[in-house]
């Protein structure tokens, strides 16, 4: 498999007769009625608690990129007291990935544990069915190409029990999927219309095959093809669809138009982070996608952070040593978490720069930066959860720390559903848990 290809080659190939854009930009259309955007960002290995929580002046060393900027600080809500309550096989890193946003008991064995049900992004997709080309998007930086031991810590987005949404880690590939064709509005309209009809007839052919095959399957197996049929339907809905970006949004990503980049090489992480965060920003701003899940690396991440001058295994030699008595580990944890905060700020700032309605795209969105663990040594109490944006006004009084005592991740998820406009009494295995108090207006 070729892991690299240049956009140039892609576009060259795209000139072949079968390849015309799947969807087109419609710059001046009024945005359709859409739910708020949500981006869930998952970080690994916990935080240095003492450097994380803001002081009385709403300042913190780790959160400086957010809180030192008045624009972002006034849109930042920090939930204090979140406890990851999970059940089933897997250790804390596993649970961060397979239980935090599914809220159900994991399945599998102690060494090979998987999510036991759909995650919140997929639930939102099913409940709200936003009419955009990609209702959900799961991506990240070096989240998927990791050792077999942790095959299940590569995605926190689940369609069903055991069925992960694969994590896209290659920005060039992601660019091609999201933006290809948006710069080809002038394509021959007659040819484009004919091609569209052909594509639809191919999709019909495929759907008929899926339907006939599904009938021959036992019920459990049929669910596999149900997922496939749904995906094809979504694909078909994308064909010929137009997107309606907010006026003033630039819906191309010029940063990608360069050399191929090895998405598996750790030395490329800073570049990959820039590219991926910018792609997520563009895709959400331009209404190409609605609910995004993003992984800063895989669970129990072992990056060396050579670019921060750290050069030892984050998981074993930094996080696990940050137990209170090691100032070097504490400083490194702070530095690493600050590095993550800068990317959250980068994403938020890009969304804040585009006006929409009475405010900005950020005001019509909700970014959620959470962590698989609370501390570097597997703590699950006081997991740092940072919300950015206003969720279209549903978020009550941003710009503060909301200390909720001790509340489970189920209640946080229930609140997020509410902020997206989905009324839910609870989440996952706690159908009646209710939301975290004091967050929704």
């Amino acid at each position, binding site marked *: 498999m070729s892991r690299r290809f240049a956009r140039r080659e892609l576009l060259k190939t795209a000139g072949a007769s079968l390849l015309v854009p799947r969807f087109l930009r419609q710059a001046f259309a009024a945005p359709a009625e859409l739910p708020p955007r949500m981006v869930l960002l998952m970080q690994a290995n916990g935080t240095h608690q003492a450097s994380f929580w803001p002081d009385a002046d709403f300042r913190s060393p780790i959160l400086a990129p957010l809180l030192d900027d008045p624009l972002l600080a006034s849109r930042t809500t920090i939930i204090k007291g979140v406890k990851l309550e999970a059940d089933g096989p897997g250790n804390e890193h596993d649970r961060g990935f397979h239980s935090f946003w599914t809220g159900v008991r994991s399945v599998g*064995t102690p060494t090979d544990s998987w999510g036991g049900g759909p995650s919140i992004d997929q639930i939102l997709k099913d409940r709200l069915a936003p009419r955009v080309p990609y209702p959900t998007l799961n991506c990240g930086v070096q989240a998927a190409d990791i050792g077999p031991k942790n095959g299940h810590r590569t995605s926190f987005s689940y369609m069903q029990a055991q069925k992960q949404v694969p994590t896209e880690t290659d920005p060039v590939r992601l660019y091609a999927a999201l933006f290809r064709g948006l710069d080809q509005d002038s394509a021959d309209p007659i040819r484009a219309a004919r091609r569209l009809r052909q594509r639809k007839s191919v999709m019909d052919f495929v759907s008929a095959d899926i339907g006939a095959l599904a009938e021959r399957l036992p019920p459990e197996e049929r669910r596999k093809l149900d997922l496939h049929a749904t995906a094809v339907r979504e694909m078909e809905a994308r064909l010929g669809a137009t997107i309606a970006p907010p006026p003033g949004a630039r819906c191309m990503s010029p940063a990608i138009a360069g050399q191929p980049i090895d998405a598996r090489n750790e030395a490329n992480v800073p570049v990959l982070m820039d590219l991926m965060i910018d792609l997520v920003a563009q895709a959400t701003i331009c209404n190409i996608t609605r609910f995004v899940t993003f992984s800063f690396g895989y669970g129990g991440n072992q990056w060396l952070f050579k670019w921060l001058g750290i050069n030892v295994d984050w998981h074993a030699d930094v996080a696990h040593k940050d137990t209170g008595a090691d100032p070097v580990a504490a400083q490194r944890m702070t530095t690493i978490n600050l590095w993550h905060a800068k990317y959250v700020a980068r994403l938020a700032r890009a969304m804040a720069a585009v006006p929409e309605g009475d405010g900005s795209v950020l005001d019509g969105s909700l970014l959620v930066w959470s962590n698989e663990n609370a501390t570097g040594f597997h703590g699950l109490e006081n997991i740092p959860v940072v919300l950015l944006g206003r969720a279209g006004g549903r978020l009550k009084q941003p710009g503060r720390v909301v200390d909720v005592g001790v509340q489970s991740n189920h209640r946080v998820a229930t609140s997020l559903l509410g902020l997206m406009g989905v009324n839910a009494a609870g989440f996952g295995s706690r159908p009646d848990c209710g939301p975290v108090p004091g967050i929704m207006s």
Partner: protein
Amino acid sequence: MPRFVLAALAAVALQACTVTAKDSIGPGPTQPPPPGAGPASCGATTGRRVRRLSITEYLTVMRDLIGDDVPLLVSIPPDPRAGGFDNNADKLSVNAGVIAHFTDVAEQVAAALPVDRLAPCGSGRAAGDCARSFATTFARRAYGRPLSADEAARLQNLFDDAAATDGYPAGIRLMAEAILQSPHFLYRTELGRQAQNHGPVALSPYEVASQLSFLVTGARPDDRLLDLADAGKLAFPDVLKSEALRLLETPRARVHLRRFLIAWLGLEDLDRLTKSNEFFPPPDFTPVIRDEMKLEIDRFLDHALGEGGGTLDALFGTSESFVTPLLASIIYKGDVLGPVGSGATLVKLDPRHRRGILSLPGFLAVHATVARTSPVDRGVFVLRRLLCQDIPDPPPGVFIPPLASPDRVRTTRQNQDDHARSPNCAACHVLIDPIGFGFEHMDGIGRFRTNEGGPAIDSSGRLNGTDVDGPFAGPAELTGKLLASRMVRACFVNHLWRWSEARDVKEGDGCALDDHLNNWLRSDGGIADLLVQFTTSARFTTRKAQP
């Protein structure tokens, strides 16, 4: 499923290590056969199902279909690895993103399809006839079975539509585009001819052909296998056996089985291995060294599968490997006996330090941390992958104390001993660490060492809770013990079975696993032997009606 796995599932994870391992583990998977049944008649345990092709299989099949002259520019994210393998049928799924990749590839391949070569249409032939024969040939190889009349008619409609406006090649391309997105291309079926409510269901001849071909070569059946399926010959075990043997001789079987070994040994990420350059500064560890370690592993495994007959002895017991001059001078040093040629050449190694895969630099470097060795990682590898003991990760709620770094006074071993002393940790680490300690003479990039800057290395190790318990020193001695272990053989059968069935081992598999293990022990053969056994058992060609 081996009983200890069930025990671990049923109990809190920590308890998996607190029970006396020997009592719970036993010599291998056992499950009494059904009453009145001999060992050869263990029933099918896999239900009727479909399997999405893994991305690896998908790309192989696609390449077979279109030849080498069509570029495949789009890459697809890898599948999740479940228990090490990327083909688990319960984990492979599709969503809009994956479908978009399949569609991209189908459209690009169709656009670049060499129509003249794959769908020639000489003067005097009707375009519709040429299209029909293309669809018949192309779909037969894409689906691994003949087209139905209905499928052929629907493809013909696509052809007619596109050809009418854009000409013959456009019609061919549109058919290809559809075939390459059909579930019959993207999945393998294991359904049999009709649904039944009880009793085993016989797979269709074409399903049997795909079973065999994917198992041995990771690809769709070739023309010969399909011809045999057409003729109904694949119902005969001796035909299946001779076909399995034929396929095992092909170069792609070698590549496919090497892929299995690499996944089993946890070596897939060797090509992107990084080390801290504070601890392993150049020239000790560089991308070039890493690539040569990978080359060595590949050559070693190919040799073990080929000349070595694919036996565990060839994998674990030999003191020869394919060493490059750079590896010899920087990693192996005095461990190479005799001259090294240019490139990776087969040389004899010092058998006191080097014996088999467990002492190769690539293996040792992967099973280590970025800065040091990792007795835990190496011990867990031996327990999980070679002995099939489902040692859990530290369970939730256990405080993990920091691990000190070795210095002039203390070794990694001493620090690890302190680190794992608490009763919560010791329950498992008393099994794990003594195995890992046995590797301590081999550093984080696979060099032999006598100290790590402080006291002399103590590499005395011990196996606990196995059928070959007792002390050993170094990977060479450990290997000797493992080769004598029935548990290791049982575990290998278990992994190969998991990979071949593309699912987790489940209750009821014990009968078949025992059966295969006993036959394998008698034959004393290699992996090929086991695969032939798999393919000739009745289970291979039947499925349970009810899951």
